[in-house]
Structures are given as structure tokens and as C-alpha cells.
């Protein structure tokens, strides 16, 4: 029974991913190659399912699970059937790439690129260990258990009446988290496949799917079409998997390994938008290229990134400002493109934020009434327990925690800083780095700003500080590969 459920869940993700990829391929954005579109759609598959489920539960609550399941999988299947030629291309091309991979592993190739092979081998080992841990560990962490518990309620109700769960149920269960419920929807979707049971067995597939997707995405962006480099790719994946806290979150079933790669994906697609409209050679001038469809798709990806978690809201300004300040369009067209992108993203991702504004008066709601209670004084407690009592501590253990706590963040931020200082020119000349740098700068500005007005929102949680980690990994990997090249040049000379 569990095997059937398992295959069903994996198949539903496959359907959704392929459906996204077909649409992307039909519209020839974000990539022109079918395999690349499939890869970029990988992280969106479960997210798209979650989004549609959320819409269905909002407007058509209370139906049997089979209705939702057949509706969503039917839509995905219909998309694939309508675009069946694209689907053939995509899957064929993806299969060709995958089946060609073993042929690349030759002793000759290994000998000629020892460093790259070693890095990939290390990454592969880390990946296998992490994947094993994902499947083997029970859910023990506090937040994941609450997500899974609240999802039980939502799955039983098949409605969003109890989201956020306030006031508490008769059992006493209370969960007032008001993030966009993407993760809940993913869990509910997995519960549906268990046919009435709500165990944690299938949930692990979500995390595994996103681990594969994150590694593949990092490898993809590090490989860079114009300058392929196995070493850069190896560094990228190894740095990603070599961030201890990230892996700890993956294996303990936290939401962060889902929202962080989605945020990264939003910026990756923004970069592709810049390439398509401004930087790639083409028949037409940048100012004359059609922008509606690429901007719509970018907006879709950004919107799904916003739907992943409250912090996803930052993705919209990140993407918009990255496009606005890096592109070559006229001012009017810049504004138009950013508006199309923004409206699409808001349409997809703003639902919960609108609801929060109606319910609580603010779009982001990350508090509890008891925390506000003067006698309880939650803020001081957090500051003491997390070593954020003094201003200097808020700087070293909050703002600069990337550098001060290697047991959580590894060395990747140090690498990014050092290589960034040494190779700043080549990193600046790389368009991707510039796009990601915009995200990093805005995130950091937000952290500094909130900290300086005495709000610990961003710095108090070490998980929030992981938000821009993939950007940092990319810069570190680019820098490390550049350093390797520099050493090779020196040796050859």
C-alpha cells in the first residue's frame, strides 16, 4: 500500500513538473533547451500542485480527496497531452542528457580533471548520505511537527477554515502561523496519497525532491553555458551540501530547504529574463524585443517563490530591482516589464499576505499574543538564549553570524568574501553574480535596517539568515573556480 502511495506521489510530482516544463518549452522561456526547462521546472512542480490545491480548498472546500487529486493531476496531464510534442522533446532531451552522463565518467576524463572529479565525488557522497538521512530520520523538530500536525487538521477538514488555527481547537491545538500555506499544502497532498492515514512516511519525498532540485539547479547555474566548468559546478554543489545547517534543516524536514531554493530559482529566472531581453545577441534591439511572455513567466516563478513562505515576499523586490538596475531597456519599458512581472507575482503569491492584512492589519505576521504580553517578555528571553543581548552580540551573532558560526554555516561565506575581494572584477563582469549580489545587498540592507531600529525579526532566527545562502554559494564557487584557473595559468606559464 505504501509503495502504491509512494509511486503515486512521485508520479504526481513528475506530472506537475513535466506540465510546467511543457508550458515553458512552448513559450521558449526561461530556456530554449528542453532539458534546461525540465530542470528549472523541477522545483516548481510540487509548488504548483500546492498552489492549485490551495486555490481549490479556498473556493471549493469539503470535497473528497479524490476530487482534488484527479482535478490537479488531470490538469497536469491535460497540459502534457495538449503539448505532447513538447513533452516528447523535453523528456527525450532530458533522457539523452541523463543517459549520456555515465559515458562522461571515464578514467580519461577523471585524469584530465582531477579536481573537478574529486569535488563531484565529494558532493555525490554528501548527497547520498543526506538522502539516506532524509528517508531514515523521524520528524523530531518542533516546527516541522507543527506543520505536519496542522496539515492533518487541514486534510481532515479539506478547507482552510482552520488556517491560521486561532482560536485553538477543542483538543487545545493552537497554531497561529500565518505564512502562505505552501508547505502545508504539500503535506496535505502527501496525506491524500496515504488514503486516510497521516504518517510522515511520504512527506520525506518532498524533501528529497527539493534536495535533488537544489543540487541540480546549483550545478546548472554554476556550469554556465558560455563558460562550462566542472570545477565550478563541483564547488557549487559541494558548498551547498557542505553548509551543515542547511543539511540539518533538510534532514529535519524544515520548510527552509524548500523556500530557499525557490527564492534562488526566482533570481535565476530573473537572470534568464535579463539575458533574453537585454544581454543575448539577437536579431532585434533590446528595446524592441517582446517582453510580455518572459515577464509573465518570471512573475509566475517569483509568485510561487512568494507563496513558499513569508520571507518569499522579499523575492519580488529582489527580482524587480535586479531587473530594473541591470537591464538595458528604456525607462518606460523597464517600468512596464517590472509591472508585468510584479502583477503576475502578486496574483500568484499575494493571497495570504492580503488575507493577513485583512485579519491582522499587516501582511507579514510572525508573532503571538503571548509574546506581546509585557509580563512574559518573550523578546528578552530570545535575546538571552540566542546570545543577542548586547549590541555587539547582535552584530556578531546576528548580522555577521555567517562568519562567526562555522558550525552552522560552514566556510562558504568566508570563501565568498575572500574570493569576492580578490576576483571582484571577474565576478562583477559575470551578469549572474550581479543579479544575485542585488538580492544579497537588499537582504543585508533589510537586516541592518531592522536591527538598527531595534527589531530582531531578521537576525533573531539563524534559519532566516540562510535565505540568501545559494547566492553566496554561487559567488564562492565562481571565485574558487577562478582561483583554480589562476593557479593553473601560473603553473602552465
Amino acid at each position, binding site marked *: 500500500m505504501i509503495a502504491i502511495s509512494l509511486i503515486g506521489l512521485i508520479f504526481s510530482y513528475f506530472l506537475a513538473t513535466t506540465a510546467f516544463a511543457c508550458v515553458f518549452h512552448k513559450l521558449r522561456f526561461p530556456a530554449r533547451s528542453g532539458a534546461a526547462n525540465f530542470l528549472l521546472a523541477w522545483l516548481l512542480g510540487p509548488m504548483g500542485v500546492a498552489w492549485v490545491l490551495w486555490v481549490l480548498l479556498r473556493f471549493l472546500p469539503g470535497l473528497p480527496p479524490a476530487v482534488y487529486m484527479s482535478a490537479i493531476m488531470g490538469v497536469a496531464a491535460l497540459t502534457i497531452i495538449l503539448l505532447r510534442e513538447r513533452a516528447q522533446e523535453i523528456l527525450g532531451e532530458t533522457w539523452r542528457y541523463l543517459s549520456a552522463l555515465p559515458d562522461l565518467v571515464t578514467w580519461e576524463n577523471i585524469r584530465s580533471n582531477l579536481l573537478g572529479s574529486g569535488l563531484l565525488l565529494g558532493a555525490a557522497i554528501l548527497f547520498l548520505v543526506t538522502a539516506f538521512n532524509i528517508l531514515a530520520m523521524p520528524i523530531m523538530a518542533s516546527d516541522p511537527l507543527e506543520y505536519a500536525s496542522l496539515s492533518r487538521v487541514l486534510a481532515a477538514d479539506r478547507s482552510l477554515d482552520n488556517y491560521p488555527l486561532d482560536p485553538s481547537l477543542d483538543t487545545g491545538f493552537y497554531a497561529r502561523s500565518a505564512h502562505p500555506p505552501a508547505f502545508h499544502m504539500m503535506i496535505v497532498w502527501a496525506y491524500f496519497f496515504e488514503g486516510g492515514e497521516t504518517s510522515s512516511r511520504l512527506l520525506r519525498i518532498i524533501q528529497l525532491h527539493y534536495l535533488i532540485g537544489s543540487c541540480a539547479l546549483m550545478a546548472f547555474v554554476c556550469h554556465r553555458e558560455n563558460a562550462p566548468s566542472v570545477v565550478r559546478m563541483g564547488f557549487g554543489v559541494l558548498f551547498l551540501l557542505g553548509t551543515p545547517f542547511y543539511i540539518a534543516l533538510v534532514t529535519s524536514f524544515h520548510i527552509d530547504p524548500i523556500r530557499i531554493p525557490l527564492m534562488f530559482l526566482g533570481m535565476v529566472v530573473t537572470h534568464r529574463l535579463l539575458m533574453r531581453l537585454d544581454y543575448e545577441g539577437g536579431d532585434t534591439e533590446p528595446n524592441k524585443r517582446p517582453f510580455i511572455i518572459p515577464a509573465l513567466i518570471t512573475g509566475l516563478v517569483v509568485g510561487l517563490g512568494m507563496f513558499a513562505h513569508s520571507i518569499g515576499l522579499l523575492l519580488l523586490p529582489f527580482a524587480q530591482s535586479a531587473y530594473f538596475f541591470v537591464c538595458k531597456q528604456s525607462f518606460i519599458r523597464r517600468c512596464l516589464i517590472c509591472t508585468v512581472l510584479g502583477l503576475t507575482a502578486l496574483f500568484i503569491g499575494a493571497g495570504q499576505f492580503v488575507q493577513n492584512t485583512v485579519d491582522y492589519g499587516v501582511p507579514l505576521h510572525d508573532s503571538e499574543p503571548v509574546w506581546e504580553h509585557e509580563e512574559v*517578555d*518573550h523578546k528578552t528571553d530570545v535575546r538571552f538564549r540566542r546570545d543577542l543581548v548586547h549590541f555587539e552580540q547582535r552584530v556578531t551573532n546576528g548580522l555577521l553570524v555567517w562568519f562567526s558560526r562555522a558550525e552552522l554555516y560552514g566556510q562558504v561565506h568566508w570563501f565568498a568574501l575572500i574570493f569576492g575581494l580578490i576576483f571582484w572584477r571577474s565576478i562583477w563582469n559575470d551578469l549572474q553574480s550581479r543579479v544575485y549580489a542585488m538580492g544579497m545587498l537588499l537582504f543585508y540592507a533589510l537586516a541592518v535596517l531592522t536591527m538598527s531600529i531595534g527589531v530582531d525579526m531578521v537576525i533573531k532566527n539563524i534559519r532566516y539568515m540562510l535565505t540568501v545562502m545559494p547566492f553566496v554559494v554561487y559567488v564562492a564557487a565562481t571565485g574558487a573556480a577562478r582561483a583554480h584557473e589562476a593557479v593553473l595559468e601560473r603553473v602552465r606559464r
Partner: protein
Amino acid sequence: MKQFWKEFVANRVTVYQIVAIILAALAVQGTARQALGRTLLFTHFSEVWGQREDGVLANRGFPGSTVFEWALNNTSPDDRFLIYRQAEFAYYLDDRRWIYDFDPKILDFYDLDESDAAYQYMLDRDVNYVFVPNYMPSTLYNSQMASVLGDPAYANELVIADGFRMFQLHETPRPWNCVDSEMLNGGFQTMVGARLGYENRGGDFLVPDDASIVGSSSYALLRTADANPGGGMRPIGGRAVPDENGDPELYMIWDRNDRDRVAFVTGEGQISQPPNGEFDRNEISGVQIELTAQGIGYLEIWIYEFTADGAWNSRRIFDTVIQEERGETTVHAQASFQPTTTSARIYISNGGFASGELRLGSPNACLVAYEDDRPDAIVLNTGMEIPADDRLPDDRFSLSQEWFTREDETVHLAFGTRCHRLSVFCRQIDETDRGALLLMHRSAQGGLDVTFPDSGGFQLFTAPVETGPRTWLECRASQRIWLLERFPFRDGTLVQLERRILGNMISNNPDRHDTRRARLHLDATVPYNSNVIAMVHWDRPGGGRGCTWLGPQIASDQTRLSWEFDLPANVDRFEPIFSYDNQLSNSGGIRISRAHLEIENQD
């Protein structure tokens, strides 16, 4: 065959080869499993997968799971819990009923000022169990519930595992008597320098001095963590002084260090050894502690429990943030003893967080004897650790000493050493700025730098040092030394503070007329890459003393070391001494399992 390997290496790695390698690995794994009953590399995946859901609460790796398992098997859906962490209840015990501390329905509870009102509030809501995770959230310690849980009349600890605790709330206040105990009233000794997370393994503490027990002396304590010479020591410390009424008043002060601890512990002797005074377990069910705290900082209370044969374990029973603005806070805490416990120590510590200053007043501890039946705590998966029979005091080598002065005075410092060169540097730290969070102002004034020559005999150096009021005097050896004996003079009296000896194998020389060749053997467990140092102190009849320096040897883990040396003639008593200096890690200590000396016969 050769051709095969040549092709295997020369050609590309095929999928078949990879599959073959994986299958071979699995076959090896399976064979090992059949033969040995266990796998070589990983747990067999299907086992893990199978137990994930059903056996998850029985999984000992799941923190606190046994408390939930107990609740699952021993409570009914009619019971009502007050819980301070919801996650596990919501997921694994979702047919139970509870009140979550975050629930806005009980916001008015946090306005209550009296513990009996808080007790009644929870009784009115049918609460009969209270679940507290392995930390105390501010919703607990900043509400009257902390006092309720600290009062044996209202509640007692019922199930304890991994620091997670289930209290039972009594249906009516249960009368109990406070039994006085020598164990708790022998005063506090201070401990400085224990490192975060070491509470569970008391052996890693510095050995406290008898001299620092509060009682007759006004001055006490003071030591810094120095297991890692040169590894960033900071002035931290505490003191315990009698107040006007003669009651002990404890004062903790520590720098922004995040790691080192200042602590007070009841009873004499090393913390991992049972204190004096056992109690009657037929009568006593637990211990209740009450003290006042003011200042700023993080405060923890731990209980160390010992069985009659010296086995022990420890756990945290209270933790809180003390804030200046709240004025004096009264802390109530209680712990139920485990079934085999016969004596206990209370340990009060800064928790190692941030910097701070705490003044703890009128500490008072009672052994709890209920007037009706004694409830037994159910303790799961926290067995007592039995120390090795032959475990000698697990000591660290102390290179630093601090004194805290109250008024202008002249302190005479004396340092003595045998066997090795010694260089000492002292300086004063004036505690001038009390208002700021940074409590210590350091200055390098008043330094003195002395060097002892290499010597086989005992060398003593003394120096007067002028101190001001509220001065910390910190002395530190500026290089590694192997044996340091310190004799601070105070008011003209010689007080021997400590003498660090790791082995105490005093032997008599069978035939003392000639120089003999001797071999000293040591079996010990030491941390990775330690220098183990040996020396032999000897006495001659009629008063001559001396020392033979045997020098360091590098050792790791379980090790056997031998030193060969000439034992001088005409020595009637000798005392081998071992110490160690750990260069790479600051964890662990030396554990000597056996040491013996062979002396060659002259014939």
C-alpha cells in the same frame, strides 16, 4: 586477467561496472549481517524505514521521546495537560487534550500575581499534568506557574527523560515537611571555568578546593578555566560571602565569554563524588530550592544525584533570565529524586550565556517529606553513571589564580615550584565601571614578572601587591609549567590553597641505601595528543626533599607509558606525580587506571 584489468581501467566506467560495485558492496554488507548480526556501514535501511513511524517514540535517539511514550501509555484522553511545547503532543499524542502556553485563551493567566491563584486557575481548567521541555520558556518562568511547579504542595516531578519533564499537579495542596540536611547546609563552594555542556559529565569540572567552602572564611573561590593554556582566558568569577545575618549570599560575575561558567555547588569535595550526608529514602521524595536573584543574566539550577555506591547523574531543573528592571526575583525549583538516589548536590550556575552579574540571596534548600505517601518519580532513560572504581580525582592543570579584594590591602603572593622552570605574571583588574554591562575594566598595572630557575629543589617566591577596593588580582603563568604550588599569604597567615597532584601513590623505598634504577609505568586514558608529565617527589629521612623531573611524553587515548630514571640514594618515601597538558583539545581529562613503579634490585 591482466587484460581484463587493463581494459577495466582504460575504458570508460560503465553503468554496469557501477552497478556491479554497488551489488558487491551490498553482498559484503549482507554477508556481514548474516555472519556478525550487524551491518558494517549503515543500519539496514528497511529496519530504519519500518521503525520510523511505529517505533518512533521508543527510539532512544529522539529527545524526550520516552516522556511522550509514557504519556501515550499511562494517560487517558480524559487527562488534561498544560504544555510548554506543543509539537510532539500535536503530532504523536493528538487524541489527548491540552492547554498550550501560547494559547490566547489563557492570556489572563499571565497577569496572576499569586501562586495559589495560578494553581487554582489550572485546577479550574482540569489540568492534572504539566509538561515542560528541556528548557523553561519565558511563559513559564515569567509567570506564577514557575512557583507552582517549584512548590511540592502543588506539584511534583513525575517523569523525567533527557531534561524533558512531566509534573503531576496535585488535586488538593499536599502537606509536606521541610527536612534539614547537612548535605545542603554545609555551605556552597564556588566553581569557575566549567565549560558549557559539561554539567552532564561532572568529572570535567575543575576540582573545587576545600578552602573555597564558605563558612568560616569570608573569602572563597576563584579560578578560571585554564585547561587550554593561552586559549583566551577571561576574568570570570564568583564569590560567596556571609551577609549581615551570617547567611550565605552568593555573588556571580562573569565577562562576555559565552562559554565559561561560574557556579556554586553545595557540599564539599569534587562535584562528581557524593557529598557528605545521606538521607532516608523511605521518607524523602525530593528537594526544594528557594533563593532570590537580582541583577542581569541567565541563571540555571541543576541537581546532581548520587546513589549509595557513588554512581551519579545530573539534570537541569530550572533556567531563567534575570533582569535588572524586575528587581529581586524569587526563584522556586524542585526536583524529585530518582529511586536509587541517596544524596545530592545543588548546582547553581550562570548558564554560560552572555555577560552578567547576579546577586543571589538567602539560598534555602529543603528535603521534601510528604506527610502522606511518598510519590516516586519515574525516571526514563537517564541511568546513573557509575564512575570507575579506581578513578582518581580528574584534575586540570591550573595555571591561573584570581583573588577578589574588598578594600585597600596588601596581598602577599607566593608561588612555589619544584622540578621546573616557572614564570609568573600578575596583574590587577579594577572593577571600576559597575553601571555598564561590561563589568570589568582591565588594566595592566601592578604586574610582576618573576622567573624561577631550573631546579631540583623547592623554590619559593613572594611579593607584596597593593590592591584597591574591588580589585581582581589575576596571576597567570606565562609559559607552560608542570607543577605549580601556590601559597598566598593573607594577613600574615600562610594558606595553602591547592596542590595539584594527579596520582597519589606514596610508597616506601624498600632498600634505600643505594641509587637504584627505577621504571615508572602508567596506564591511563588521556585526550588526543596530550603531553603526560611525570615527576617523582621524594623525601629523605630527617627532612631532605627533592624531585626528579621525568619529563613529558606524547600520548593519545588508552595508553601505557613508561619512564626510566635513577632513584637517588637514601630516600625513604617517594611520590610519583602525573599531570598532563592537552595541546589540541580542551576536552576530557586524564583517567589513570593503573600506575606502578619497578625498582631494580642491586644484585
